[in-house]
């Protein structure tokens, strides 16, 4: 759920009631239907702009906050090669956050406003980063499976209709393929290592299994759909479809190592659909609303960065500069 496109019932209603110029709206929708991209200077419906800002902004926050659980392990990486790879990966995540903030900014919300909304809790980030990385095996599992889930989501979103977001995602997906490979490498080393290494990996998989199922958001039968977001190519696949694609790609890669998932009901049925036990959607709701193991720490670290760096930014600020919205 990097780019969260789940909307409330209220929002769905409003989306259908907002009046837009019918001629401009028709031209806009025809352009998207033809597969053309929308660019920052183009006319667009208010709701399109609003939903995109929300989605890209949350994606950006997820990259920045997502670097925290892994960053924890840089100082304790087991060897120099792993340390180099982890530093590079964490730097990538921050870079991706910056790319995405800029993409969202082309829609008219400044980066400072987005950061403000992250700190005051108005804007969310991916729920999965509210869980701690307890051991080195967590770093392996995050690198392989969390990034794997993110790539499923991002590859789909890169086929969307908003030009700057698609371009940012193409670069991001290209760079994240390295995250995935080094994560897999790390997982395989632990799985083929000593008994203790295998046990550590199995323990990490056990703990990350449910947050990974939560990653793509609530099941389709309980979440609000918007045909408009689909038509406008803001949302391109349902939560369940993305989750299924993820399980299809990654479950066999864990099973082939003799590692299991802590769910006896996890299997592919005759219609090629993955089935699994209820991953406790109440927990998902609870954590997203602030009551997760690391919510407070993640925000406190961001607040610290904001406050401790403020004097530097103020010193850099020139009063004569006039801010304009970035071009693309």
């Amino acid at each position, binding site marked *: 759920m990097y780019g969260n496109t789940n909307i409330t019932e209220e929002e769905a209603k409003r989306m259908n009631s907002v009046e837009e110029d019918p001629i401009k709206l028709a031209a806009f929708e025809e352009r998207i239907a033809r597969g053309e991209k929308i660019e920052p*200077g*183009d*006319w667009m419906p208010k709701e399109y702009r609003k939903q995109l800002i929300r989605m890209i902004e949350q994606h950006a926050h997820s990259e920045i906050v997502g670097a*925290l659980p892994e*960053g*924890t392990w840089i*100082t304790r990486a087991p060897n120099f090669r792993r340390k180099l790879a982890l530093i*590079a990966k964490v730097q990538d995540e921050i*870079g991706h956050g*910056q*790319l995405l903030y*800029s993409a969202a*900014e082309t829609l008219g919300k*400044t*980066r*400072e*406003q987005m*950061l*403000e909304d992250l*700190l*005051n809790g108005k804007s969310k980030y991916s729920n999965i980063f509210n*869980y701690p*990385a*307890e051991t080195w095996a967590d770093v392996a599992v995050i690198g392989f499976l969390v990034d794997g889930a993110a790539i499923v989501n991002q590859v789909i979103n890169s086929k969307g209709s908003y030009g700057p977001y698609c371009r*940012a995602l193409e*670069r991001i997906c*290209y*760079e994240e393929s390295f995250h995935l490979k080094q994560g897999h490498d790390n997982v395989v080393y632990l799985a083929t290592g000593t008994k203790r290494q295998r046990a550590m990996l199995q323990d990490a998989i*056990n*703990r990350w*299994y449910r947050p990974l199922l939560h990653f793509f958001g609530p099941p389709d039968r309980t979440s609000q759909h918007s045909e408009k977001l689909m038509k406008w190519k803001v949302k391109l696949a349902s939560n369940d479809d993305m989750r299924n694609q993820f399980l299809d790609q990654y479950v066999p890669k864990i099973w082939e190592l003799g590692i299991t998932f*802590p*769910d006896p*009901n996890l299997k592919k049925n005759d219609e090629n659909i993955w089935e699994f036990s209820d991953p406790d959607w109440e*927990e998902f709701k609870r954590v997203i609303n602030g009551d*997760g*193991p*690391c919510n*407070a*720490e993640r*925000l*406190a*670290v961001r*607040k*610290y960065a*904001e*406050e401790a760096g*403020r004097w530097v*930014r*103020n010193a*850099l*600020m020139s009063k004569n*500069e*006039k*801010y*304009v*919205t*970035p*071009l*693309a």
Partner: protein
Amino acid sequence: MKNTLPHWHNLPFLEDLKISIMNSLDPRVKRLHLKSGETEPVHTNTHLVTWEVFHQDKRGKQHVHVGVVHASSPEMALIMAKEAFGRRGKTANLWVVKTSDVFTFQSEDEDMFETTPEKTFRDPAFYKVRDRIEKFQKQQLQ
């Protein structure tokens, strides 16, 4: 299934997290002695300006627009651009241009370019003289 899975909320250290976040797993966070709570709002009325970044991957090729960075000076913009767009593959050079210094057409004016492909008199293939030369040569022989 609820009871068969390890539950994050049952881990002992989480109880401590609710009281104070100093018990972070991250030693660097621990050293900061952070407390959760209110923060002074981000100064949303002050912004670093943005710079459009152009990347040249090889000597002899053109610079291509790749994205945007935030910076207070051209020097800082170049450092940010190097970190953001020079982390993979080859880079020969980067340009940064302050966004406010870029002038563009409005995107609704795109139609002014619509007839360009019809202007075949601008194409080399429009100019065919071989027939005329051959006709001329035949006339000369008569």
